[in-house]
């Protein structure tokens, strides 16, 4: 009886992973077809297949523009959106697990404010020595410096405490957002660029963005999977986790830094996109329980599907494109309120 229960729960997780993976592939192909110029499902598959195998015969008779639209414009954007969604979601899982706080998200340590400040600086002073990558580069530096400072601020001889981290994150983020306001005040015509960047966008992403985010999210995913069991133990508190063999000074630091770096890369590439890192882990946890060994792969896929859908909605379904960060907050915020209220009512 108990064996079967255990087995069936592992099996159902596997089925969910397969289902989400198929859903993700489906959404990628469908959304690639959607847009100002509509392409059929099969044309998209043919173009991708032709590109991978190098056989031009598949795309014979098609408009010459179609492969360009798919390969150079839509796919990089779509893949970046998916990868960023997955990255934010797993980063959220880890933050919630380490800080023992279901309300933590990838931006809890002020990573988003740091990135925004760095980006605003680069935009305001028109720093362009890295071409189009100047702004993301500065955003990443800003996020990383903020992270280092927050960890420095909250660390004591006894290791990192969850309360100290959250508090330091809030303080530093508050200072930085005042700084951002000041930069906006100084800026003249660039102010709209800054505002637009802050609200997040996947417009004009390149394959470089895809590879960059993919590399970071992949490495983070492997690290998180490796420590998933330790993350379970850490929810029992530091003392107990240590007595069960977790190195409670090293492991949280490794996970925290990795999760923050992923969030930093995601923010640098796409601007500030809220609620994905908060909502996805919550949803998956309410279905599958809090075991991080299931939570991490499922959140990765669900985050990718969700953010990709959201991006497709603003890009191809709505009459005018609204910033993705605004959309996720507008959909995610009320949804979160709903879950939260339901939990309160349940006691």
């Amino acid at each position, binding site marked *: 009886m*108990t*064996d079967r*229960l*255990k087995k069936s729960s*592992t099996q159902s997780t596997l089925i969910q992973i397969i289902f989400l993976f198929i859903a993700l592939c489906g959404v990628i192909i469908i959304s690639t077809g959607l847009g100002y110029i509509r392409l059929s499902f099969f044309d998209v598959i043919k173009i991708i297949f032709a590109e991978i195998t190098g056989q031009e015969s598949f795309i014979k008779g098609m408009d010459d523009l179609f492969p360009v639209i798919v390969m150079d414009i839509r796919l990089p954007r779509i893949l970046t959106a998916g990868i960023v969604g997955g990255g934010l979601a797993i980063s959220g899982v880890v933050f919630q*697990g380490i800080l*023992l*706080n*279901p309300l933590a998200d990838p931006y809890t340590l002020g990573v988003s404010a740091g990135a925004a400040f760095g980006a605003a600086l680069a935009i305001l002073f028109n720093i362009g020595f890295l071409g189009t990558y100047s702004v993301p580069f500065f955003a990443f530096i800003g996020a990383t410096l903020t992270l280092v400072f927050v960890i420095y601020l909250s660390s004591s001889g006894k290791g990192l405490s969850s309360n100290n981290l959250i508090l330091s994150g809030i303080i530093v983020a508050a200072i930085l957002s005042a700084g951002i306001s000041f930069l906006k005040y100084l800026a003249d015509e660039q102010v709209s660029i800054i505002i637009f960047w802050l609200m997040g966008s996947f417009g004009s992403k390149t394959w470089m963005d895809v590879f960059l985010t993919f590399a970071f999210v992949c490495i983070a995913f492997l690290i998180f999977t*490796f420590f998933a*069991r330790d993350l*379970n*133990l850490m*929810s*029992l*508190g*530091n*003392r*107990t986790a*240590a*007595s*069960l*063999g*977790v*190195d409670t000074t090293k492991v949280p630091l490794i996970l925290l830094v990795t999760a923050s770096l992923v969030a930093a890369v995601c923010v640098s590439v796409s601007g500030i996109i809220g609620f994905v890192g908060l909502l996805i882990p919550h949803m998956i*946890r309410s279905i599958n*329980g*809090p*075991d991080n060994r299931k939570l991490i792969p499922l959140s990765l896929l669900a985050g990718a599907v969700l953010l990709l859908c959201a991006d497709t909605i603003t890009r191809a379904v709505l009459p005018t494109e609204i910033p993705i960060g605004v959309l996720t907050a507008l959909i995610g915020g009320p949804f979160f309120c709903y879950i939260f209220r339901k939990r309160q009512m349940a006691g």
Partner: protein
Amino acid sequence: MAFEVDNITFYYEDKKVIDALSVVLESGKFYGILGPNGCGKTTLIDLLLKHSRPSTGKINYKGKDLSHYSRKELSREIALVPQNFYINFPFTAKEVVMMGRYPHMPRFSVPTEVDLELVQDIMEKTDTYQFAHRFITELSGGERQRVVFARALAQDTPVLILDEATSNLDIHHTIRLLNIASERVEKDKKTIIAVLQDINLAAAFCDDLIFMKQGSIAACGNSDEVLNREIIHSIFNVETKIYYEPYSNAKQVIFKR
């Protein structure tokens, strides 16, 4: 010999919490640690668990310096039932008990038949199997403490440390769990180190008692010998009458109000 604590001192910030403390804890015995609030009992336990390191002095475990053990090795040697236990995520009671098996399982493996049977057996013994599939977040304080106790038993280590592990339990479950603990001492030659508040329970279950005061050991020895009016008065500043009670086969303490 389980622990040899040799003249350790520990400072918490600027405050001396443990002061030149030495004690030897033998294997296969049930130790009770007693003392007033803030006398350093929990700190001593943290030091035995290598959760904190002594500022000066040395602790040996099985003849080897405790600091030379890795966390992984220690997790197979010493289990802990902590004093306060709070968990923010809805793991089921069974999942929590299964976590006690983690130190014995390779990182990416699923529980074996042996693990599953052991967990079920322990949950039945600790009377927690009835809520095996309920969420730990929804259990009462006492039920949760039993689950945590079961988790530590599942860890199946030579040493079990109980830090006021029965503080939330009713008397039935207190006695039930302490009986499981002393059975392990007698049958499997395990070592139990229990911080207790109830002197009568300590006298009934522990082979040896260790009285602590202001970060050092005020008295220690065989329960029947060490427990007397003068010691209780000097440590807790209460008036008592102490006599041998054949019904519990131990010395018992009556307090003056």
